[in-house]
Protein backbone atom coordinates (compact mmCIF):
# COMPACT_ATOMS: atom_id res chain seq x y z
CA UNK A 1 0.00 0.00 0.00
CA UNK A 2 1.81 3.08 -1.20
CA UNK A 3 1.18 6.31 0.62
CA UNK A 4 0.46 9.69 -0.92
CA UNK A 5 3.32 11.94 0.23
CA UNK A 6 1.98 14.99 2.05
CA UNK A 7 5.24 16.55 3.14
CA UNK A 8 8.39 17.59 1.32
CA UNK A 9 11.50 15.63 2.17
CA UNK A 10 14.68 17.38 3.32
CA UNK A 11 15.90 17.60 -0.28
CA UNK A 12 12.65 19.01 -1.60
CA UNK A 13 13.12 22.63 -0.59
CA UNK A 14 16.30 23.49 -2.45
CA UNK A 15 14.66 26.10 -4.65
CA UNK A 16 12.78 27.81 -1.82
CA UNK A 17 13.28 31.54 -1.59
CA UNK A 18 14.42 32.78 1.83
CA UNK A 19 11.64 34.58 3.73
CA UNK A 20 13.36 37.96 3.36
CA UNK A 21 14.26 37.69 -0.33
CA UNK A 22 15.87 39.79 -1.90
CA UNK A 23 17.61 40.62 1.37
CA UNK A 24 16.27 42.86 4.10
CA UNK A 25 12.81 43.29 5.55
CA UNK A 26 11.89 46.52 3.80
CA UNK A 27 13.25 45.42 0.40
CA UNK A 28 11.10 42.30 0.70
CA UNK A 29 8.06 44.45 1.40
CA UNK A 30 8.73 46.88 -1.42
CA UNK A 31 9.54 44.24 -4.02
CA UNK A 32 6.52 42.09 -3.22
CA UNK A 33 4.07 44.97 -3.00
CA UNK A 34 5.22 46.09 -6.46
CA UNK A 35 5.03 42.50 -7.77
CA UNK A 36 1.51 42.06 -6.41
CA UNK A 37 0.28 45.38 -7.81
CA UNK A 38 1.71 44.65 -11.26
CA UNK A 39 0.43 41.08 -11.15
CA UNK A 40 -3.08 42.21 -10.25
CA UNK A 41 -3.31 45.01 -12.81
CA UNK A 42 -1.79 43.02 -15.68
CA UNK A 43 -3.78 39.87 -14.93
CA UNK A 44 -7.03 41.82 -14.58
CA UNK A 45 -6.46 43.41 -17.99
CA UNK A 46 -5.61 40.00 -19.43
CA UNK A 47 -8.72 38.50 -17.83
CA UNK A 48 -10.97 41.21 -19.23
CA UNK A 49 -9.51 40.65 -22.69
CA UNK A 50 -9.77 36.86 -22.37
CA UNK A 51 -13.28 36.99 -21.06
CA UNK A 52 -14.59 39.38 -23.72
CA UNK A 53 -12.95 37.53 -26.59
CA UNK A 54 -13.49 34.06 -25.18
CA UNK A 55 -17.09 34.74 -24.27
CA UNK A 56 -17.57 36.00 -27.82
CA UNK A 57 -16.19 32.74 -29.19
CA UNK A 58 -18.34 30.67 -26.86
CA UNK A 59 -21.41 32.61 -27.97
CA UNK A 60 -20.50 32.18 -31.67
CA UNK A 61 -19.56 35.81 -32.27
CA UNK A 62 -16.22 37.57 -32.68
CA UNK A 63 -15.95 39.71 -29.58
CA UNK A 64 -14.17 43.09 -29.59
CA UNK A 65 -11.39 42.94 -32.21
CA UNK A 66 -10.89 46.55 -33.36
CA UNK A 67 -8.59 48.17 -30.78
CA UNK A 68 -5.04 47.03 -31.53
CA UNK A 69 -4.05 43.68 -33.07
CA UNK A 70 -6.72 41.07 -32.25
CA UNK A 71 -8.41 43.64 -30.03
CA UNK A 72 -5.68 43.35 -27.45
CA UNK A 73 -5.95 47.02 -26.48
CA UNK A 74 -9.66 46.68 -25.68
CA UNK A 75 -9.17 46.71 -21.85
CA UNK A 76 -7.05 49.87 -22.20
CA UNK A 77 -9.75 51.50 -24.29
CA UNK A 78 -12.37 50.46 -21.75
CA UNK A 79 -10.31 51.91 -18.91
CA UNK A 80 -9.78 55.24 -20.68
CA UNK A 81 -13.45 55.49 -21.56
CA UNK A 82 -14.56 54.86 -18.00
CA UNK A 83 -12.00 57.27 -16.54
CA UNK A 84 -13.16 60.11 -18.79
CA UNK A 85 -16.76 59.77 -17.68
CA UNK A 86 -18.36 62.22 -15.30
CA UNK A 87 -18.40 61.24 -11.65
CA UNK A 88 -21.98 61.52 -10.43
CA UNK A 89 -23.02 61.43 -6.78
CA UNK A 90 -26.75 61.17 -5.99
CA UNK A 91 -28.00 64.46 -4.51
CA UNK A 92 -29.66 62.81 -1.50
CA UNK A 93 -27.02 60.17 -1.03
CA UNK A 94 -24.44 59.95 1.73
CA UNK A 95 -21.46 61.55 -0.04
CA UNK A 96 -18.68 60.38 2.28
CA UNK A 97 -19.89 56.78 2.37
CA UNK A 98 -20.51 56.87 -1.39
CA UNK A 99 -16.88 57.91 -1.89
CA UNK A 100 -15.46 55.37 0.58
CA UNK A 101 -17.41 52.32 -0.62
CA UNK A 102 -15.27 51.36 -3.66
CA UNK A 103 -12.10 51.75 -1.58
CA UNK A 104 -13.47 49.55 1.21
CA UNK A 105 -14.41 46.95 -1.38
CA UNK A 106 -11.07 47.07 -3.20
CA UNK A 107 -8.57 46.97 -0.31
CA UNK A 108 -9.58 43.51 1.03
CA UNK A 109 -9.54 42.05 -2.49
CA UNK A 110 -5.99 43.29 -2.92
CA UNK A 111 -4.90 42.18 0.56
CA UNK A 112 -5.72 38.55 -0.28
CA UNK A 113 -2.64 38.40 -2.51
CA UNK A 114 -0.33 38.99 0.47
CA UNK A 115 -0.41 35.27 1.30
CA UNK A 116 -0.62 33.74 -2.20
CA UNK A 117 2.63 31.87 -2.98
CA UNK A 118 3.79 32.58 -6.55
CA UNK A 119 6.71 30.19 -6.11
CA UNK A 120 8.21 28.28 -3.20
CA UNK A 121 8.52 30.91 -0.47
CA UNK A 122 7.81 33.74 -2.92
CA UNK A 123 5.02 35.49 -1.07
CA UNK A 124 4.68 38.70 0.90
CA UNK A 125 4.15 37.04 4.29
CA UNK A 126 3.94 33.32 5.00
CA UNK A 127 1.29 33.62 7.70
CA UNK A 128 0.72 30.42 9.61
CA UNK A 129 -3.00 31.21 9.50
CA UNK A 130 -2.83 31.86 5.72
CA UNK A 131 -6.17 30.52 4.52
CA UNK A 132 -8.03 31.75 7.58
CA UNK A 133 -6.62 35.21 6.90
CA UNK A 134 -8.01 35.02 3.36
CA UNK A 135 -11.46 34.01 4.59
CA UNK A 136 -11.46 36.78 7.19
CA UNK A 137 -10.20 39.52 4.88
CA UNK A 138 -12.55 38.65 2.03
CA UNK A 139 -15.53 38.91 4.37
CA UNK A 140 -14.76 42.63 4.81
CA UNK A 141 -15.52 43.31 1.14
CA UNK A 142 -19.23 42.80 1.88
CA UNK A 143 -19.16 45.96 3.97
CA UNK A 144 -18.02 47.90 0.89
CA UNK A 145 -20.92 46.58 -1.17
CA UNK A 146 -23.27 47.48 1.66
CA UNK A 147 -21.92 51.01 1.85
CA UNK A 148 -22.36 51.45 -1.89
CA UNK A 149 -25.92 50.19 -1.77
CA UNK A 150 -26.84 52.40 1.15
CA UNK A 151 -25.09 55.61 0.13
CA UNK A 152 -26.63 55.60 -3.35
CA UNK A 153 -30.08 56.35 -1.94
CA UNK A 154 -31.63 54.14 -4.60
CA UNK A 155 -33.93 51.22 -3.99
CA UNK A 156 -32.27 49.07 -6.62
CA UNK A 157 -28.86 49.67 -5.08
CA UNK A 158 -30.21 48.74 -1.67
CA UNK A 159 -31.90 45.59 -3.01
CA UNK A 160 -28.68 44.58 -4.72
CA UNK A 161 -26.70 45.08 -1.52
CA UNK A 162 -29.19 43.07 0.52
CA UNK A 163 -29.14 40.24 -1.99
CA UNK A 164 -25.37 40.30 -1.80
CA UNK A 165 -25.28 39.93 1.95
CA UNK A 166 -27.83 37.13 1.99
CA UNK A 167 -25.85 35.29 -0.65
CA UNK A 168 -22.37 35.88 0.77
CA UNK A 169 -23.31 34.95 4.34
CA UNK A 170 -25.01 31.75 3.15
CA UNK A 171 -22.24 30.59 0.84
CA UNK A 172 -19.47 31.37 3.30
CA UNK A 173 -20.45 28.31 5.37
CA UNK A 174 -19.95 25.61 2.68
CA UNK A 175 -16.89 27.54 1.48
CA UNK A 176 -15.15 27.39 4.85
CA UNK A 177 -16.22 23.78 5.44
CA UNK A 178 -14.72 22.69 2.12
CA UNK A 179 -11.50 24.54 2.96
CA UNK A 180 -11.43 22.66 6.28
CA UNK A 181 -11.17 19.37 4.35
CA UNK A 182 -8.06 20.60 2.55
CA UNK A 183 -6.57 21.87 5.81
CA UNK A 184 -7.17 18.47 7.42
CA UNK A 185 -5.31 16.64 4.67
CA UNK A 186 -2.47 19.18 4.46
CA UNK A 187 -2.16 19.59 8.22
CA UNK A 188 -1.49 23.32 7.97
CA UNK A 189 -3.26 26.63 7.40
CA UNK A 190 -0.25 28.22 5.74
CA UNK A 191 -0.71 28.62 1.98
CA UNK A 192 2.91 27.70 1.20
CA UNK A 193 2.77 24.58 3.35
CA UNK A 194 -0.52 23.55 1.76
CA UNK A 195 1.22 23.69 -1.63
CA UNK A 196 4.18 21.74 -0.27
CA UNK A 197 1.83 19.02 0.96
CA UNK A 198 0.44 18.44 -2.53
CA UNK A 199 2.57 15.85 -4.28
CA UNK A 200 -0.74 14.99 -5.87
CA UNK A 201 -3.10 17.92 -6.36
CA UNK A 202 -5.81 17.95 -3.71
CA UNK A 203 -8.45 18.09 -6.42
CA UNK A 204 -7.89 14.31 -6.61
CA UNK A 205 -7.96 13.69 -2.86
CA UNK A 206 -10.79 16.17 -2.28
CA UNK A 207 -12.89 16.11 -5.46
CA UNK A 208 -16.15 16.85 -3.65
CA UNK A 209 -14.46 19.60 -1.65
CA UNK A 210 -13.22 21.15 -4.88
CA UNK A 211 -16.72 21.12 -6.41
CA UNK A 212 -18.25 22.70 -3.32
CA UNK A 213 -15.49 25.27 -3.04
CA UNK A 214 -15.74 26.17 -6.71
CA UNK A 215 -19.50 26.71 -6.62
CA UNK A 216 -19.53 28.51 -3.28
CA UNK A 217 -16.64 30.75 -4.32
CA UNK A 218 -18.36 31.61 -7.60
CA UNK A 219 -21.32 32.71 -5.51
CA UNK A 220 -19.06 34.69 -3.17
CA UNK A 221 -17.55 36.70 -6.00
CA UNK A 222 -20.92 36.95 -7.79
CA UNK A 223 -20.02 35.29 -11.04
CA UNK A 224 -22.78 34.32 -13.47
CA UNK A 225 -24.96 31.68 -12.33
CA UNK A 226 -25.02 33.60 -9.04
CA UNK A 227 -24.73 37.25 -10.09
CA UNK A 228 -28.11 38.18 -8.64
CA UNK A 229 -26.93 41.35 -7.03
CA UNK A 230 -26.42 42.88 -10.44
CA UNK A 231 -29.18 41.13 -12.35
CA UNK A 232 -29.82 43.65 -15.13
CA UNK A 233 -33.32 42.45 -15.88
CA UNK A 234 -34.42 42.76 -12.25
CA UNK A 235 -32.55 45.50 -10.39
CA UNK A 236 -30.75 47.57 -13.08
CA UNK A 237 -27.10 47.13 -12.03
CA UNK A 238 -27.54 46.35 -8.35
CA UNK A 239 -25.34 48.09 -5.80
CA UNK A 240 -23.36 50.08 -8.38
CA UNK A 241 -26.35 51.49 -10.25
CA UNK A 242 -25.47 55.02 -9.10
CA UNK A 243 -21.75 54.74 -9.73
CA UNK A 244 -19.95 56.17 -12.71
CA UNK A 245 -16.48 57.22 -13.78
CA UNK A 246 -13.49 56.23 -11.69
CA UNK A 247 -15.56 54.84 -8.83
CA UNK A 248 -17.41 52.52 -11.19
CA UNK A 249 -14.04 51.50 -12.64
CA UNK A 250 -12.89 50.61 -9.16
CA UNK A 251 -15.91 48.34 -8.62
CA UNK A 252 -15.22 46.75 -11.99
CA UNK A 253 -11.62 46.24 -10.88
CA UNK A 254 -12.81 44.73 -7.58
CA UNK A 255 -14.93 42.22 -9.46
CA UNK A 256 -12.03 40.99 -11.56
CA UNK A 257 -9.52 41.18 -8.69
CA UNK A 258 -11.80 38.92 -6.69
CA UNK A 259 -12.03 36.46 -9.57
CA UNK A 260 -8.25 36.56 -9.91
CA UNK A 261 -7.90 35.96 -6.18
CA UNK A 262 -10.38 33.10 -6.42
CA UNK A 263 -8.42 31.51 -9.27
CA UNK A 264 -5.20 31.88 -7.30
CA UNK A 265 -6.78 30.37 -4.17
CA UNK A 266 -8.18 27.39 -6.09
CA UNK A 267 -4.77 26.93 -7.72
CA UNK A 268 -3.10 26.96 -4.32
CA UNK A 269 -5.57 24.80 -2.43
CA UNK A 270 -6.57 22.22 -5.01
CA UNK A 271 -4.24 22.34 -8.02
CA UNK A 272 -0.91 22.16 -6.15
CA UNK A 273 -0.02 25.83 -6.73
CA UNK A 274 3.44 26.41 -8.15
CA UNK A 275 4.33 22.71 -8.28
CA UNK A 276 4.77 20.99 -11.60
CA UNK A 277 7.39 19.30 -13.77
CA UNK A 278 9.86 20.97 -16.19
CA UNK A 279 8.53 24.51 -16.35
CA UNK A 280 9.60 27.07 -13.72
CA UNK A 281 7.24 27.25 -10.70
CA UNK A 282 5.79 30.73 -11.30
CA UNK A 283 4.89 29.73 -14.86
CA UNK A 284 3.00 26.70 -13.53
CA UNK A 285 1.20 29.00 -11.13
CA UNK A 286 0.19 31.36 -13.97
CA UNK A 287 -0.93 28.52 -16.23
CA UNK A 288 -3.14 27.06 -13.51
CA UNK A 289 -4.62 30.46 -12.62
CA UNK A 290 -5.54 31.10 -16.24
CA UNK A 291 -6.98 27.59 -16.59
CA UNK A 292 -9.20 28.11 -13.53
CA UNK A 293 -10.33 31.46 -14.89
CA UNK A 294 -11.18 29.83 -18.20
CA UNK A 295 -13.33 27.32 -16.32
CA UNK A 296 -15.09 30.18 -14.50
CA UNK A 297 -16.10 32.09 -17.61
CA UNK A 298 -16.91 28.89 -19.43
CA UNK A 299 -19.46 28.23 -16.66
CA UNK A 300 -20.68 31.82 -17.05
CA UNK A 301 -21.34 31.38 -20.75
CA UNK A 302 -23.06 28.02 -20.24
CA UNK A 303 -25.43 28.31 -17.28
CA UNK A 304 -28.22 30.89 -17.03
CA UNK A 305 -28.74 32.99 -13.92
CA UNK A 306 -30.60 31.39 -11.02
CA UNK A 307 -33.55 32.85 -9.17
CA UNK A 308 -32.88 34.26 -5.70
CA UNK A 309 -34.84 31.54 -3.88
CA UNK A 310 -33.05 28.87 -5.92
CA UNK A 311 -29.71 30.39 -4.98
CA UNK A 312 -30.53 30.32 -1.27
CA UNK A 313 -32.03 26.83 -1.42
CA UNK A 314 -28.96 25.58 -3.25
CA UNK A 315 -26.66 26.93 -0.53
CA UNK A 316 -28.61 25.57 2.44
CA UNK A 317 -30.14 22.37 1.10
CA UNK A 318 -27.42 21.17 -1.24
CA UNK A 319 -23.98 22.66 -0.58
CA UNK A 320 -24.16 22.76 3.22
CA UNK A 321 -25.06 19.07 3.76
CA UNK A 322 -22.59 17.98 1.10
CA UNK A 323 -19.85 20.08 2.71
CA UNK A 324 -20.60 18.56 6.12
CA UNK A 325 -20.51 15.04 4.69
CA UNK A 326 -17.26 15.84 2.88
CA UNK A 327 -15.66 17.13 6.09
CA UNK A 328 -16.89 14.09 8.01
CA UNK A 329 -15.55 11.61 5.44
CA UNK A 330 -12.21 13.44 5.26
CA UNK A 331 -11.89 13.41 9.03
CA UNK A 332 -12.77 9.72 9.11
CA UNK A 333 -10.09 8.94 6.53
CA UNK A 334 -7.47 10.94 8.42
CA UNK A 335 -8.29 9.20 11.70
CA UNK A 336 -8.53 5.72 10.19
CA UNK A 337 -5.25 6.03 8.26
CA UNK A 338 -2.85 7.83 10.57
CA UNK A 339 0.28 6.79 8.64
CA UNK A 340 -0.85 8.56 5.46
CA UNK A 341 -3.48 8.37 2.76
CA UNK A 342 -3.04 5.49 0.29
CA UNK A 343 -3.38 6.03 -3.46
CA UNK A 344 -6.57 4.02 -3.90
CA UNK A 345 -8.29 6.62 -1.74
CA UNK A 346 -8.32 8.93 -4.78
CA UNK A 347 -10.63 6.51 -6.59
CA UNK A 348 -12.73 6.00 -3.46
CA UNK A 349 -13.16 9.75 -3.02
CA UNK A 350 -14.09 10.30 -6.65
CA UNK A 351 -16.65 7.50 -6.38
CA UNK A 352 -18.08 9.06 -3.20
CA UNK A 353 -18.31 12.42 -4.98
CA UNK A 354 -20.16 10.98 -7.97
CA UNK A 355 -22.62 9.09 -5.77
CA UNK A 356 -23.33 12.08 -3.53
CA UNK A 357 -23.70 14.57 -6.37
CA UNK A 358 -26.07 12.28 -8.28
CA UNK A 359 -28.02 11.60 -5.09
CA UNK A 360 -28.39 15.27 -4.18
CA UNK A 361 -29.09 16.54 -7.67
CA UNK A 362 -32.21 14.38 -7.56
CA UNK A 363 -33.72 16.83 -5.07
CA UNK A 364 -33.18 19.79 -7.38
CA UNK A 365 -34.61 18.65 -10.66
CA UNK A 366 -36.47 21.41 -12.48
CA UNK A 367 -39.19 20.69 -14.96
CA UNK A 368 -38.96 16.93 -14.58
CA UNK A 369 -41.94 16.72 -12.25
CA UNK A 370 -40.58 18.60 -9.21
CA UNK A 371 -40.69 22.29 -10.00
CA UNK A 372 -40.24 23.39 -6.44
CA UNK A 373 -36.70 23.56 -5.10
Amino acid at each position, binding site marked *: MTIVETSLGPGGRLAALPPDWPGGYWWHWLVFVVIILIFVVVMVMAFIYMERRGLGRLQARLGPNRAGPLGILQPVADAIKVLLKEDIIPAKGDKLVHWLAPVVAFVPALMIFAVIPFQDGALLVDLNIGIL*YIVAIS*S*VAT*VGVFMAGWASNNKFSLLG*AMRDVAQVVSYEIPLVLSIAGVVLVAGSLSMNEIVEAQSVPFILLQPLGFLIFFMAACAEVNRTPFDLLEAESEIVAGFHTEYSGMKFALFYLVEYTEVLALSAIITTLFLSGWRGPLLPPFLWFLIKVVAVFFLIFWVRSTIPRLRIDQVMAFAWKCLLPLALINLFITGLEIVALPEGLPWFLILVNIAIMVVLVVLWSGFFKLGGGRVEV
Partner: protein
Amino acid sequence: MGLEIAFWALAIVGVVAALAVVLLRDVFRAALSLVLCFLAVAGIYVTLSADFLAAVQVLVYVGAISVLIILAIMLTREVQRGSPSNRLRLPAFVVAILFFGAVVFAMVNTPWQVVDVPPLEPTTSALAFKLFGEGGFILPVEIAPVLLLAAILGAIVLVREK
Protein backbone atom coordinates in the same frame (compact mmCIF):
# COMPACT_ATOMS: atom_id res chain seq x y z
CA MET B 1 9.28 51.34 19.23
CA GLY B 2 7.39 50.27 16.14
CA LEU B 3 5.01 48.25 18.27
CA GLU B 4 4.37 51.25 20.50
CA ILE B 5 3.52 53.49 17.54
CA ALA B 6 1.22 50.76 16.20
CA PHE B 7 -0.46 50.37 19.58
CA TRP B 8 -1.15 54.09 20.02
CA ALA B 9 -2.37 54.54 16.45
CA LEU B 10 -4.73 51.56 16.81
CA ALA B 11 -5.83 52.61 20.28
CA ILE B 12 -6.70 56.14 19.15
CA VAL B 13 -8.54 54.88 16.08
CA GLY B 14 -10.39 52.33 18.21
CA VAL B 15 -11.46 54.81 20.89
CA VAL B 16 -12.47 57.51 18.38
CA ALA B 17 -14.46 54.95 16.39
CA ALA B 18 -16.13 53.67 19.57
CA LEU B 19 -17.10 57.22 20.54
CA ALA B 20 -18.41 57.80 17.01
CA VAL B 21 -20.65 54.74 17.37
CA VAL B 22 -22.35 56.35 20.35
CA LEU B 23 -22.34 59.99 19.31
CA LEU B 24 -23.18 59.89 15.61
CA ARG B 25 -26.79 60.69 14.73
CA ASP B 26 -26.69 58.74 11.49
CA VAL B 27 -27.27 55.10 12.49
CA PHE B 28 -25.67 53.69 9.36
CA ARG B 29 -22.48 55.68 9.88
CA ALA B 30 -22.49 54.59 13.52
CA ALA B 31 -22.56 50.96 12.35
CA LEU B 32 -19.65 51.65 10.00
CA SER B 33 -17.71 53.17 12.92
CA LEU B 34 -18.37 49.95 14.79
CA VAL B 35 -16.72 48.05 11.92
CA LEU B 36 -13.71 50.37 12.17
CA CYS B 37 -13.57 49.81 15.94
CA PHE B 38 -13.59 46.01 15.48
CA LEU B 39 -10.80 46.29 12.91
CA ALA B 40 -8.71 48.39 15.31
CA VAL B 41 -9.18 45.75 18.01
CA ALA B 42 -8.08 43.08 15.52
CA GLY B 43 -5.00 45.19 14.82
CA ILE B 44 -4.19 45.29 18.53
CA TYR B 45 -4.43 41.48 18.62
CA VAL B 46 -1.89 41.38 15.78
CA THR B 47 0.55 43.54 17.75
CA LEU B 48 0.14 41.06 20.64
CA SER B 49 1.16 38.14 18.34
CA ALA B 50 -2.34 36.67 18.59
CA ASP B 51 -2.71 36.25 14.83
CA PHE B 52 -5.37 33.53 14.99
CA LEU B 53 -7.49 35.62 17.34
CA ALA B 54 -7.13 38.64 15.04
CA ALA B 55 -8.31 36.69 12.00
CA VAL B 56 -11.25 35.25 13.92
CA GLN B 57 -12.10 38.74 15.24
CA VAL B 58 -12.29 40.06 11.67
CA LEU B 59 -14.18 37.00 10.45
CA VAL B 60 -16.78 36.95 13.21
CA TYR B 61 -17.20 40.60 14.19
CA VAL B 62 -16.61 42.40 10.90
CA GLY B 63 -17.73 39.69 8.52
CA ALA B 64 -20.76 38.41 10.38
CA ILE B 65 -21.97 40.50 13.31
CA SER B 66 -21.48 43.95 11.76
CA VAL B 67 -23.07 42.79 8.55
CA LEU B 68 -26.09 41.54 10.47
CA ILE B 69 -26.31 44.86 12.35
CA ILE B 70 -26.18 46.77 9.05
CA LEU B 71 -28.82 44.47 7.58
CA ALA B 72 -31.03 45.15 10.58
CA ILE B 73 -30.55 48.89 10.07
CA MET B 74 -31.54 48.57 6.42
CA LEU B 75 -34.72 46.78 7.45
CA THR B 76 -35.56 49.51 9.98
CA ARG B 77 -37.96 52.24 8.94
CA GLU B 78 -37.23 55.96 9.25
CA VAL B 79 -33.49 55.52 9.70
CA GLN B 80 -32.95 58.93 8.13
CA ARG B 81 -34.18 60.67 11.26
CA GLY B 82 -31.25 59.24 13.16
CA SER B 83 -31.44 57.68 16.57
CA PRO B 84 -33.79 59.77 18.70
CA SER B 85 -33.10 59.73 22.43
CA ASN B 86 -35.80 58.54 24.79
CA ARG B 87 -36.51 58.52 28.53
CA LEU B 88 -33.89 55.89 29.19
CA ARG B 89 -31.14 58.40 28.44
CA LEU B 90 -30.27 59.15 32.06
CA PRO B 91 -30.35 55.55 33.38
CA ALA B 92 -28.25 54.43 30.44
CA PHE B 93 -25.73 57.16 31.22
CA VAL B 94 -25.54 56.06 34.87
CA VAL B 95 -25.11 52.40 33.94
CA ALA B 96 -22.41 53.28 31.42
CA ILE B 97 -20.50 55.36 33.97
CA LEU B 98 -20.74 52.55 36.55
CA PHE B 99 -19.51 50.01 34.01
CA PHE B 100 -16.66 52.27 32.95
CA GLY B 101 -15.67 52.77 36.60
CA ALA B 102 -15.75 49.02 37.24
CA VAL B 103 -13.55 48.32 34.22
CA VAL B 104 -11.04 51.03 35.16
CA PHE B 105 -11.00 49.78 38.78
CA ALA B 106 -10.39 46.20 37.64
CA MET B 107 -7.63 47.24 35.25
CA VAL B 108 -5.80 49.39 37.77
CA ASN B 109 -6.02 46.90 40.65
CA THR B 110 -5.13 43.69 38.81
CA PRO B 111 -1.55 42.48 39.34
CA TRP B 112 -0.77 41.95 35.63
CA GLN B 113 1.71 39.18 34.97
CA VAL B 114 4.52 40.08 32.59
CA VAL B 115 6.19 37.14 30.85
CA ASP B 116 9.63 37.36 29.26
CA VAL B 117 9.09 34.30 27.05
CA PRO B 118 8.89 35.21 23.35
CA PRO B 119 5.45 34.58 21.80
CA LEU B 120 4.70 31.09 20.56
CA GLU B 121 5.31 30.40 16.86
CA PRO B 122 3.25 28.98 15.18
CA THR B 123 0.21 29.66 17.31
CA THR B 124 -2.31 27.45 15.51
CA SER B 125 -1.20 24.00 16.62
CA ALA B 126 -0.70 25.10 20.25
CA LEU B 127 -4.18 26.60 20.20
CA ALA B 128 -5.64 23.42 18.70
CA PHE B 129 -4.05 21.24 21.40
CA LYS B 130 -5.33 23.61 24.07
CA LEU B 131 -8.88 23.53 22.68
CA PHE B 132 -9.25 19.93 21.56
CA GLY B 133 -6.34 18.02 23.12
CA GLU B 134 -6.24 16.09 26.34
CA GLY B 135 -6.64 18.19 29.46
CA GLY B 136 -7.76 21.07 27.26
CA PHE B 137 -10.98 23.04 27.04
CA ILE B 138 -12.96 20.49 25.04
CA LEU B 139 -15.98 20.67 27.35
CA PRO B 140 -16.51 24.45 27.04
CA VAL B 141 -15.86 24.17 23.30
CA GLU B 142 -18.66 21.61 23.10
CA ILE B 143 -21.03 23.51 25.40
CA ALA B 144 -20.80 26.75 23.42
CA PRO B 145 -22.23 25.22 20.19
CA VAL B 146 -25.05 23.62 22.17
CA LEU B 147 -25.89 27.04 23.59
CA LEU B 148 -25.77 28.59 20.12
CA LEU B 149 -27.95 25.81 18.74
CA ALA B 150 -30.50 26.43 21.48
CA ALA B 151 -30.48 30.15 20.61
CA ILE B 152 -30.99 29.41 16.92
CA LEU B 153 -33.85 27.03 17.67
CA GLY B 154 -35.39 29.68 19.92
CA ALA B 155 -35.16 32.26 17.14
CA ILE B 156 -36.81 29.87 14.70
CA VAL B 157 -39.63 29.16 17.14
CA LEU B 158 -40.16 32.90 17.70
CA VAL B 159 -40.48 33.80 14.02
CA ARG B 160 -42.26 30.65 12.86
CA GLU B 161 -45.53 31.23 11.06
CA LYS B 162 -48.48 29.74 12.87
